[in-house]
Protein backbone atom coordinates (compact mmCIF):
# COMPACT_ATOMS: atom_id res chain seq x y z
CA UNK A 1 0.00 0.00 0.00
CA UNK A 2 2.85 2.35 0.81
CA UNK A 3 3.95 2.56 -2.82
CA UNK A 4 0.42 2.77 -4.10
CA UNK A 5 -0.04 6.07 -2.26
CA UNK A 6 2.90 7.64 -4.08
CA UNK A 7 1.12 7.44 -7.42
CA UNK A 8 -1.31 9.81 -8.99
CA UNK A 9 -4.28 10.68 -6.90
CA UNK A 10 -4.45 8.26 -3.95
CA UNK A 11 -8.08 9.29 -3.53
CA UNK A 12 -8.87 7.79 -6.94
CA UNK A 13 -7.17 4.57 -5.82
CA UNK A 14 -9.41 4.39 -2.76
CA UNK A 15 -12.44 5.07 -4.93
CA UNK A 16 -11.42 2.39 -7.45
CA UNK A 17 -10.95 -0.23 -4.73
CA UNK A 18 -14.33 0.71 -3.21
CA UNK A 19 -15.92 0.39 -6.62
CA UNK A 20 -14.33 -3.05 -7.05
CA UNK A 21 -15.85 -4.18 -3.74
CA UNK A 22 -19.23 -2.78 -4.73
CA UNK A 23 -19.23 -4.50 -8.15
CA UNK A 24 -17.82 -7.87 -7.13
CA UNK A 25 -20.66 -10.29 -6.45
CA UNK A 26 -19.76 -12.07 -3.17
CA UNK A 27 -21.45 -15.23 -4.44
CA UNK A 28 -19.09 -15.39 -7.39
CA UNK A 29 -15.39 -16.19 -7.83
CA UNK A 30 -13.66 -14.10 -10.52
CA UNK A 31 -10.64 -15.36 -12.38
CA UNK A 32 -8.95 -12.58 -14.34
CA UNK A 33 -5.77 -13.17 -16.33
CA UNK A 34 -3.18 -10.44 -16.71
CA UNK A 35 -1.52 -11.46 -19.96
CA UNK A 36 1.61 -9.34 -19.69
CA UNK A 37 4.60 -10.11 -17.47
CA UNK A 38 5.12 -6.40 -16.79
CA UNK A 39 1.66 -6.36 -15.22
CA UNK A 40 2.52 -9.44 -13.14
CA UNK A 41 5.59 -7.66 -11.81
CA UNK A 42 3.58 -4.52 -10.96
CA UNK A 43 0.76 -6.51 -9.30
CA UNK A 44 3.20 -8.19 -6.90
CA UNK A 45 5.25 -5.07 -6.35
CA UNK A 46 2.26 -2.98 -5.34
CA UNK A 47 0.63 -5.76 -3.37
CA UNK A 48 -2.63 -5.36 -5.33
CA UNK A 49 -3.71 -8.79 -4.12
CA UNK A 50 -4.07 -7.26 -0.65
CA UNK A 51 -6.36 -4.51 -1.96
CA UNK A 52 -8.64 -6.83 -3.93
CA UNK A 53 -11.46 -8.79 -2.33
CA UNK A 54 -10.58 -12.46 -1.90
CA UNK A 55 -13.03 -13.61 -4.59
CA UNK A 56 -11.06 -11.80 -7.31
CA UNK A 57 -8.18 -14.00 -8.36
CA UNK A 58 -5.50 -12.72 -10.70
CA UNK A 59 -4.01 -15.42 -12.93
CA UNK A 60 -0.59 -14.73 -14.44
CA UNK A 61 -0.43 -15.12 -18.18
CA UNK A 62 2.20 -16.10 -20.73
CA UNK A 63 3.40 -12.57 -21.57
CA UNK A 64 7.03 -12.90 -20.56
CA UNK A 65 9.07 -13.55 -23.71
CA UNK A 66 12.06 -15.00 -21.90
CA UNK A 67 9.81 -17.38 -19.94
CA UNK A 68 7.99 -18.91 -22.90
CA UNK A 69 11.11 -19.58 -24.97
CA UNK A 70 11.86 -23.33 -25.07
CA UNK A 71 15.27 -24.18 -23.69
CA UNK A 72 16.39 -25.74 -26.98
CA UNK A 73 16.28 -22.36 -28.75
CA UNK A 74 18.97 -21.03 -26.39
CA UNK A 75 21.13 -24.08 -27.13
CA UNK A 76 20.51 -23.63 -30.87
CA UNK A 77 21.46 -19.95 -30.78
CA UNK A 78 24.64 -20.66 -28.86
CA UNK A 79 25.51 -23.66 -31.06
CA UNK A 80 25.62 -21.55 -34.21
CA UNK A 81 27.69 -18.92 -32.39
CA UNK A 82 30.47 -21.39 -31.53
CA UNK A 83 32.64 -20.37 -34.50
CA UNK A 84 35.56 -18.28 -33.19
CA UNK A 85 34.82 -15.61 -35.75
CA UNK A 86 31.32 -15.05 -34.40
CA UNK A 87 29.90 -12.60 -31.90
CA UNK A 88 26.68 -13.69 -30.17
CA UNK A 89 24.62 -10.67 -29.16
CA UNK A 90 21.54 -10.61 -26.93
CA UNK A 91 19.60 -8.45 -24.51
CA UNK A 92 20.70 -8.58 -20.88
CA UNK A 93 17.48 -10.45 -19.91
CA UNK A 94 18.71 -13.50 -21.80
CA UNK A 95 22.14 -13.80 -20.24
CA UNK A 96 21.26 -15.91 -17.20
CA UNK A 97 18.56 -18.01 -18.85
CA UNK A 98 19.73 -21.63 -18.75
CA UNK A 99 19.97 -23.77 -21.87
CA UNK A 100 20.66 -27.49 -21.54
CA UNK A 101 24.37 -26.69 -21.88
CA UNK A 102 24.36 -23.54 -19.81
CA UNK A 103 23.28 -19.93 -20.16
CA UNK A 104 24.78 -17.39 -22.58
CA UNK A 105 26.67 -15.99 -19.62
CA UNK A 106 28.21 -19.39 -18.85
CA UNK A 107 29.16 -19.79 -22.51
CA UNK A 108 30.92 -16.47 -22.27
CA UNK A 109 32.96 -17.79 -19.38
CA UNK A 110 33.92 -20.71 -21.64
CA UNK A 111 35.31 -18.35 -24.23
CA UNK A 112 32.42 -17.75 -26.64
CA UNK A 113 32.21 -14.07 -27.62
CA UNK A 114 28.88 -13.18 -26.02
CA UNK A 115 27.87 -9.52 -25.67
CA UNK A 116 24.93 -7.58 -24.34
CA UNK A 117 23.19 -4.87 -26.32
CA UNK A 118 20.24 -2.78 -25.30
CA UNK A 119 18.94 -2.24 -28.82
CA UNK A 120 18.95 -4.29 -32.02
CA UNK A 121 20.27 -1.14 -33.71
CA UNK A 122 23.42 -1.47 -31.60
CA UNK A 123 23.85 -5.11 -32.65
CA UNK A 124 23.86 -3.91 -36.26
CA UNK A 125 26.32 -1.16 -35.37
CA UNK A 126 28.58 -3.81 -33.85
CA UNK A 127 28.54 -5.67 -37.19
CA UNK A 128 29.34 -2.47 -39.09
CA UNK A 129 32.33 -1.79 -36.83
CA UNK A 130 33.62 -5.37 -37.01
CA UNK A 131 33.42 -6.29 -40.71
CA UNK A 132 35.76 -9.28 -40.20
CA UNK A 133 33.35 -10.84 -37.66
CA UNK A 134 29.92 -12.45 -38.03
CA UNK A 135 27.41 -10.89 -35.64
CA UNK A 136 24.38 -13.01 -34.69
CA UNK A 137 21.63 -11.15 -32.86
CA UNK A 138 19.41 -13.36 -30.67
CA UNK A 139 16.06 -11.60 -31.21
CA UNK A 140 13.34 -12.15 -28.66
CA UNK A 141 10.10 -10.51 -27.65
CA UNK A 142 6.45 -10.02 -28.48
CA UNK A 143 5.11 -7.30 -30.79
CA UNK A 144 6.70 -4.68 -28.53
CA UNK A 145 10.21 -5.50 -29.74
CA UNK A 146 9.57 -7.20 -33.10
CA UNK A 147 9.14 -3.88 -35.03
CA UNK A 148 12.55 -2.67 -33.78
CA UNK A 149 14.17 -5.88 -35.02
CA UNK A 150 12.33 -5.43 -38.33
CA UNK A 151 13.60 -1.88 -38.86
CA UNK A 152 17.12 -3.01 -37.96
CA UNK A 153 17.00 -5.80 -40.56
CA UNK A 154 15.67 -3.33 -43.16
CA UNK A 155 18.55 -1.04 -42.31
CA UNK A 156 21.07 -3.91 -42.69
CA UNK A 157 19.66 -4.56 -46.17
CA UNK A 158 19.61 -0.89 -47.12
CA UNK A 159 23.25 -0.45 -46.09
CA UNK A 160 24.25 -3.88 -47.41
CA UNK A 161 25.74 -5.03 -44.10
CA UNK A 162 26.24 -8.74 -44.76
CA UNK A 163 28.03 -9.90 -41.62
CA UNK A 164 24.87 -9.43 -39.54
CA UNK A 165 22.12 -11.97 -39.02
CA UNK A 166 19.17 -12.47 -36.73
CA UNK A 167 18.25 -15.66 -34.86
CA UNK A 168 14.56 -14.86 -34.64
CA UNK A 169 12.48 -15.91 -31.63
CA UNK A 170 9.77 -13.27 -31.92
CA UNK A 171 6.34 -14.50 -30.92
CA UNK A 172 2.84 -13.03 -31.11
CA UNK A 173 0.53 -12.76 -28.15
CA UNK A 174 -2.91 -13.50 -29.60
CA UNK A 175 -2.30 -17.20 -30.49
CA UNK A 176 -1.02 -17.77 -26.94
CA UNK A 177 -4.25 -16.34 -25.53
CA UNK A 178 -6.15 -18.64 -27.87
CA UNK A 179 -4.16 -21.66 -26.68
CA UNK A 180 -4.96 -20.78 -23.08
CA UNK A 181 -8.65 -20.38 -23.82
CA UNK A 182 -8.61 -23.75 -25.61
CA UNK A 183 -6.96 -25.43 -22.65
CA UNK A 184 -9.56 -27.64 -20.93
CA UNK A 185 -8.25 -27.04 -17.40
CA UNK A 186 -8.54 -23.27 -17.63
CA UNK A 187 -11.58 -21.21 -16.75
CA UNK A 188 -11.25 -17.44 -17.01
CA UNK A 189 -13.73 -14.58 -16.71
CA UNK A 190 -11.77 -11.85 -18.47
CA UNK A 191 -8.41 -10.45 -19.46
CA UNK A 192 -6.26 -7.49 -18.51
CA UNK A 193 -4.80 -6.95 -21.97
CA UNK A 194 -1.13 -6.15 -22.52
CA UNK A 195 -0.04 -2.51 -22.41
CA UNK A 196 2.96 -2.06 -24.63
CA UNK A 197 2.18 -4.86 -27.06
CA UNK A 198 -1.06 -2.99 -27.67
CA UNK A 199 0.77 0.26 -28.50
CA UNK A 200 1.88 -1.68 -31.59
CA UNK A 201 -1.05 -3.97 -32.46
CA UNK A 202 -3.86 -1.79 -31.08
CA UNK A 203 -7.07 -3.25 -29.63
CA UNK A 204 -8.73 -4.88 -32.65
CA UNK A 205 -6.77 -8.17 -32.48
CA UNK A 206 -8.54 -8.94 -29.16
CA UNK A 207 -12.06 -8.46 -30.50
CA UNK A 208 -12.58 -12.20 -31.19
CA UNK A 209 -12.05 -12.91 -27.48
CA UNK A 210 -15.06 -10.77 -26.64
CA UNK A 211 -17.13 -11.75 -29.66
CA UNK A 212 -16.45 -15.50 -29.89
CA UNK A 213 -15.45 -16.41 -26.36
CA UNK A 214 -17.68 -13.95 -24.53
CA UNK A 215 -14.83 -12.66 -22.33
CA UNK A 216 -14.15 -8.97 -21.76
CA UNK A 217 -10.67 -7.57 -22.43
CA UNK A 218 -9.30 -4.29 -21.07
CA UNK A 219 -5.85 -3.14 -22.23
CA UNK A 220 -4.17 -1.59 -19.22
CA UNK A 221 -1.34 0.68 -18.11
CA UNK A 222 1.15 -0.40 -15.47
CA UNK A 223 0.49 1.92 -12.52
CA UNK A 224 -1.56 0.71 -9.55
CA UNK A 225 -4.45 2.98 -10.50
CA UNK A 226 -4.35 1.74 -14.11
CA UNK A 227 -4.62 -1.87 -12.99
CA UNK A 228 -7.40 -1.16 -10.49
CA UNK A 229 -9.34 0.86 -13.07
CA UNK A 230 -8.97 -1.98 -15.56
CA UNK A 231 -10.40 -4.39 -13.01
CA UNK A 232 -13.31 -1.97 -12.41
CA UNK A 233 -13.94 -1.86 -16.18
CA UNK A 234 -13.88 -5.67 -16.39
CA UNK A 235 -16.23 -6.06 -13.42
CA UNK A 236 -18.66 -3.50 -14.87
CA UNK A 237 -18.87 -5.55 -18.06
CA UNK A 238 -19.23 -8.83 -16.17
CA UNK A 239 -21.87 -7.22 -13.93
CA UNK A 240 -23.83 -6.08 -16.99
CA UNK A 241 -23.34 -9.42 -18.76
CA UNK A 242 -21.33 -7.78 -21.54
CA UNK A 243 -18.12 -8.71 -23.32
CA UNK A 244 -16.26 -5.95 -25.13
CA UNK A 245 -12.70 -4.77 -25.71
CA UNK A 246 -11.98 -1.56 -23.83
CA UNK A 247 -8.85 0.55 -23.70
CA UNK A 248 -7.83 1.81 -20.26
CA UNK A 249 -4.30 2.76 -21.45
CA UNK A 250 -5.45 5.39 -23.95
CA UNK A 251 -2.51 7.65 -23.18
CA UNK A 252 -0.18 5.17 -24.93
CA UNK A 253 -2.40 2.78 -26.91
CA UNK A 254 -4.14 3.96 -30.10
CA UNK A 255 -7.11 1.72 -30.96
CA UNK A 256 -5.63 0.96 -34.38
CA UNK A 257 -2.07 0.48 -33.09
CA UNK A 258 1.10 1.89 -34.61
CA UNK A 259 0.85 1.75 -38.39
CA UNK A 260 4.56 2.32 -39.05
CA UNK A 261 5.48 -0.50 -36.65
CA UNK A 262 2.97 -2.91 -38.20
CA UNK A 263 4.20 -2.00 -41.68
CA UNK A 264 7.83 -2.74 -40.74
CA UNK A 265 6.83 -6.10 -39.21
CA UNK A 266 4.83 -7.06 -42.30
CA UNK A 267 7.71 -6.10 -44.58
CA UNK A 268 10.30 -8.27 -42.83
CA UNK A 269 8.44 -11.10 -41.08
CA UNK A 270 5.99 -13.83 -41.93
CA UNK A 271 4.23 -16.28 -39.61
CA UNK A 272 5.85 -19.63 -38.94
CA UNK A 273 3.44 -22.53 -39.47
CA UNK A 274 4.01 -23.45 -35.82
CA UNK A 275 6.41 -22.73 -32.95
CA UNK A 276 7.07 -24.38 -29.62
CA UNK A 277 6.24 -22.42 -26.45
CA UNK A 278 7.57 -23.46 -23.12
CA UNK A 279 4.69 -24.85 -21.12
CA UNK A 280 2.13 -24.39 -23.87
CA UNK A 281 3.59 -26.75 -26.46
CA UNK A 282 3.38 -26.19 -30.22
CA UNK A 283 1.06 -23.35 -31.24
CA UNK A 284 0.26 -22.79 -34.88
CA UNK A 285 1.00 -19.39 -36.46
CA UNK A 286 2.30 -18.01 -33.18
CA UNK A 287 5.80 -16.88 -34.10
CA UNK A 288 7.64 -14.87 -36.72
CA UNK A 289 10.43 -15.72 -39.13
CA UNK A 290 12.21 -13.64 -41.77
CA UNK A 291 10.71 -13.47 -45.25
CA UNK A 292 12.62 -14.95 -48.19
CA UNK A 293 13.59 -11.43 -49.31
CA UNK A 294 15.62 -11.11 -46.08
CA UNK A 295 17.07 -14.67 -46.12
CA UNK A 296 20.59 -13.21 -46.22
CA UNK A 297 20.05 -11.85 -42.72
CA UNK A 298 18.29 -14.93 -41.33
CA UNK A 299 20.65 -16.89 -39.06
CA UNK A 300 18.43 -19.99 -39.40
CA UNK A 301 19.00 -19.99 -43.17
CA UNK A 302 22.67 -19.07 -43.05
CA UNK A 303 23.78 -21.57 -40.43
CA UNK A 304 23.03 -25.18 -39.76
CA UNK A 305 20.76 -25.12 -36.72
CA UNK A 306 20.80 -28.34 -34.65
CA UNK A 307 17.10 -27.94 -33.70
CA UNK A 308 17.70 -29.04 -30.15
CA UNK A 309 14.68 -30.14 -28.17
CA UNK A 310 15.09 -30.18 -24.43
CA UNK A 311 12.40 -31.39 -22.07
CA UNK A 312 12.05 -29.33 -18.91
CA UNK A 313 13.14 -31.15 -15.75
CA UNK A 314 10.25 -33.45 -14.83
CA UNK A 315 10.04 -32.09 -11.31
CA UNK A 316 9.68 -28.47 -12.53
CA UNK A 317 6.12 -27.39 -13.28
CA UNK A 318 6.87 -24.30 -15.38
CA UNK A 319 4.17 -25.28 -17.87
CA UNK A 320 1.37 -25.40 -15.33
CA UNK A 321 2.51 -22.10 -13.81
CA UNK A 322 2.73 -20.48 -17.26
CA UNK A 323 -0.81 -21.56 -18.09
CA UNK A 324 -2.01 -20.27 -14.73
CA UNK A 325 -3.12 -23.74 -13.59
CA UNK A 326 -0.67 -23.67 -10.66
CA UNK A 327 0.49 -20.75 -8.53
CA UNK A 328 4.29 -20.34 -8.40
CA UNK A 329 4.53 -21.60 -4.81
CA UNK A 330 2.60 -24.77 -5.72
CA UNK A 331 5.51 -25.98 -7.89
CA UNK A 332 7.55 -28.64 -6.11
CA UNK A 333 10.85 -26.88 -6.79
CA UNK A 334 9.76 -23.36 -5.85
CA UNK A 335 12.01 -21.78 -3.25
CA UNK A 336 13.96 -25.05 -2.86
CA UNK A 337 15.96 -26.10 -5.91
CA UNK A 338 14.63 -23.16 -7.93
CA UNK A 339 15.36 -19.63 -6.68
CA UNK A 340 16.27 -16.34 -8.43
CA UNK A 341 19.91 -17.04 -7.50
CA UNK A 342 19.78 -20.57 -8.99
CA UNK A 343 16.91 -20.61 -11.48
CA UNK A 344 15.84 -23.94 -12.97
CA UNK A 345 13.10 -22.45 -15.13
CA UNK A 346 12.97 -19.11 -16.93
CA UNK A 347 9.99 -17.95 -14.85
CA UNK A 348 12.47 -17.55 -12.02
CA UNK A 349 14.99 -15.57 -14.11
CA UNK A 350 13.14 -12.65 -15.59
CA UNK A 351 11.71 -9.94 -13.32
CA UNK A 352 8.56 -10.34 -15.44
CA UNK A 353 8.36 -14.05 -14.68
CA UNK A 354 5.66 -14.85 -12.17
CA UNK A 355 7.92 -17.10 -10.08
CA UNK A 356 10.60 -14.42 -9.64
CA UNK A 357 7.97 -11.76 -8.89
CA UNK A 358 6.25 -14.02 -6.36
CA UNK A 359 9.57 -15.01 -4.80
CA UNK A 360 10.86 -11.45 -4.48
CA UNK A 361 7.72 -9.82 -3.14
CA UNK A 362 5.67 -12.49 -1.38
CA UNK A 363 7.94 -15.38 -0.47
CA UNK A 364 10.85 -13.35 0.95
CA UNK A 365 8.33 -11.37 3.01
CA UNK A 366 6.82 -14.56 4.41
CA UNK A 367 10.31 -15.88 5.22
CA UNK A 368 11.06 -12.72 7.20
CA UNK A 369 7.76 -13.05 9.06
CA UNK A 370 8.49 -16.69 9.86
CA UNK A 371 11.96 -15.84 11.13
CA UNK A 372 10.48 -13.01 13.23
CA UNK A 373 7.92 -15.38 14.71
CA UNK A 374 10.57 -18.00 15.40
CA UNK A 375 12.83 -15.46 17.12
CA UNK A 376 10.02 -14.01 19.19
CA UNK A 377 8.81 -17.45 20.29
CA UNK A 378 12.37 -18.31 21.37
CA UNK A 379 12.58 -15.05 23.30
Amino acid at each position, binding site marked *: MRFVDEFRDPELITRASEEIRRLADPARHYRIMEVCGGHTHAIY*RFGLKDILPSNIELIHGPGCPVCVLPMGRIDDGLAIARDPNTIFVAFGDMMRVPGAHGSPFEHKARGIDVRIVYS*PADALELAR*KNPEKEVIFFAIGFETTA*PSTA*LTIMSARAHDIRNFSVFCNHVTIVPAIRAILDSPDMRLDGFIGPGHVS*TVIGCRPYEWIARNEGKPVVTSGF*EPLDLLQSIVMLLRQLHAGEARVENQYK*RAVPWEGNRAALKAMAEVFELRPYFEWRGLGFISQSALRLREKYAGWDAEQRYSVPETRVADPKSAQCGEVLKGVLKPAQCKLFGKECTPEHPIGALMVSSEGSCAAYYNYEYRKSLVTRIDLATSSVA
Partner: protein
Amino acid sequence: MCLAIPGKIVDIAAGQNLVGTVEVTGVRRKVQLGLLEDDMPKIGDWVLIHVGFAMSRISEQDAAEQMRLLTALGETEQAMEEVRGYGLENDIANGAGRDGPTQWSGKSHA
Protein backbone atom coordinates in the same frame (compact mmCIF):
# COMPACT_ATOMS: atom_id res chain seq x y z
CA MET B 1 11.71 -5.87 -21.43
CA CYS B 2 8.08 -4.96 -21.18
CA LEU B 3 8.52 -1.69 -19.35
CA ALA B 4 9.19 1.40 -21.37
CA ILE B 5 11.57 4.22 -20.58
CA PRO B 6 10.33 7.82 -20.90
CA GLY B 7 12.64 10.32 -22.62
CA LYS B 8 12.55 13.87 -23.92
CA ILE B 9 13.55 14.51 -27.53
CA VAL B 10 16.37 17.07 -27.49
CA ASP B 11 17.62 16.69 -31.05
CA ILE B 12 16.51 15.18 -34.34
CA ALA B 13 19.17 14.36 -36.93
CA ALA B 14 18.69 15.74 -40.41
CA GLY B 15 18.35 13.29 -43.28
CA GLN B 16 16.54 10.05 -43.92
CA ASN B 17 17.76 7.98 -41.01
CA LEU B 18 15.10 9.00 -38.48
CA VAL B 19 17.48 9.18 -35.55
CA GLY B 20 17.21 11.54 -32.62
CA THR B 21 18.70 12.25 -29.24
CA VAL B 22 16.72 11.74 -26.07
CA GLU B 23 17.42 12.88 -22.57
CA VAL B 24 16.48 10.57 -19.72
CA THR B 25 17.09 12.13 -16.30
CA GLY B 26 20.11 14.03 -17.55
CA VAL B 27 21.63 11.28 -19.71
CA ARG B 28 21.61 11.90 -23.47
CA ARG B 29 21.60 9.04 -25.91
CA LYS B 30 20.77 8.17 -29.49
CA VAL B 31 17.27 6.86 -30.16
CA GLN B 32 15.69 5.48 -33.35
CA LEU B 33 12.57 7.34 -34.50
CA GLY B 34 11.55 5.10 -37.41
CA LEU B 35 8.51 3.68 -35.60
CA LEU B 36 7.04 7.18 -35.16
CA GLU B 37 7.23 7.91 -38.87
CA ASP B 38 3.50 8.71 -38.96
CA ASP B 39 3.54 10.83 -35.84
CA MET B 40 7.01 12.37 -35.79
CA PRO B 41 7.87 14.02 -32.48
CA LYS B 42 9.32 17.51 -32.33
CA ILE B 43 12.15 18.70 -30.13
CA GLY B 44 10.77 19.00 -26.60
CA ASP B 45 8.22 16.17 -27.01
CA TRP B 46 8.23 13.15 -24.70
CA VAL B 47 8.31 9.56 -25.93
CA LEU B 48 8.26 6.02 -24.52
CA ILE B 49 11.35 4.07 -25.55
CA HIS B 50 11.68 0.30 -25.97
CA VAL B 51 15.03 -1.29 -26.87
CA GLY B 52 16.39 1.97 -28.28
CA PHE B 53 13.34 2.78 -30.42
CA ALA B 54 10.77 5.48 -29.58
CA MET B 55 7.41 3.69 -29.63
CA SER B 56 4.81 6.29 -28.73
CA ARG B 57 4.47 9.95 -27.88
CA ILE B 58 3.25 10.76 -24.37
CA SER B 59 2.61 13.87 -22.27
CA GLU B 60 5.19 15.31 -19.92
CA GLN B 61 3.06 14.35 -16.92
CA ASP B 62 2.77 10.75 -18.13
CA ALA B 63 6.55 10.67 -18.61
CA ALA B 64 7.06 11.74 -14.99
CA GLU B 65 4.61 9.07 -13.79
CA GLN B 66 6.36 6.45 -15.90
CA MET B 67 9.70 7.34 -14.27
CA ARG B 68 8.10 7.02 -10.83
CA LEU B 69 6.72 3.64 -11.85
CA LEU B 70 10.19 2.42 -12.85
CA THR B 71 11.51 3.65 -9.50
CA ALA B 72 8.77 1.86 -7.57
CA LEU B 73 9.39 -1.35 -9.51
CA GLY B 74 13.09 -1.11 -8.69
CA GLU B 75 13.97 -0.82 -12.35
CA THR B 76 15.41 2.69 -12.57
CA GLU B 77 18.97 1.50 -12.36
CA GLN B 78 18.36 -1.14 -15.02
CA ALA B 79 16.59 1.45 -17.19
CA MET B 80 19.44 3.94 -16.86
CA GLU B 81 21.97 1.25 -17.62
CA GLU B 82 19.95 0.47 -20.73
CA VAL B 83 19.80 4.13 -21.75
CA ARG B 84 23.55 4.54 -21.22
CA GLY B 85 24.02 1.52 -23.47
CA TYR B 86 22.12 2.95 -26.46
CA GLY B 87 24.32 3.89 -29.38
CA LEU B 88 27.53 3.70 -27.41
CA GLU B 89 29.36 2.84 -30.58
CA ASN B 90 32.93 2.97 -29.35
CA ASP B 91 32.34 1.15 -26.10
CA ILE B 92 30.43 -1.66 -27.68
CA ALA B 93 32.68 -2.00 -30.69
CA ASN B 94 35.91 -1.88 -28.73
CA GLY B 95 34.65 -4.06 -25.96
CA ALA B 96 35.39 -1.43 -23.32
CA GLY B 97 33.41 -1.24 -20.09
CA ARG B 98 30.89 1.48 -19.41
CA ASP B 99 30.41 3.79 -16.54
CA GLY B 100 28.26 2.45 -13.75
CA PRO B 101 28.30 -1.25 -14.54
CA THR B 102 26.18 -3.47 -12.35
CA GLN B 103 26.42 -7.20 -11.80
CA TRP B 104 27.48 -9.12 -14.85
CA SER B 105 26.90 -6.38 -17.35
CA GLY B 106 30.17 -4.67 -16.53
CA LYS B 107 32.07 -7.73 -17.59
CA SER B 108 29.94 -8.38 -20.59
CA HIS B 109 31.97 -6.26 -22.95
CA ALA B 110 35.35 -7.42 -21.77
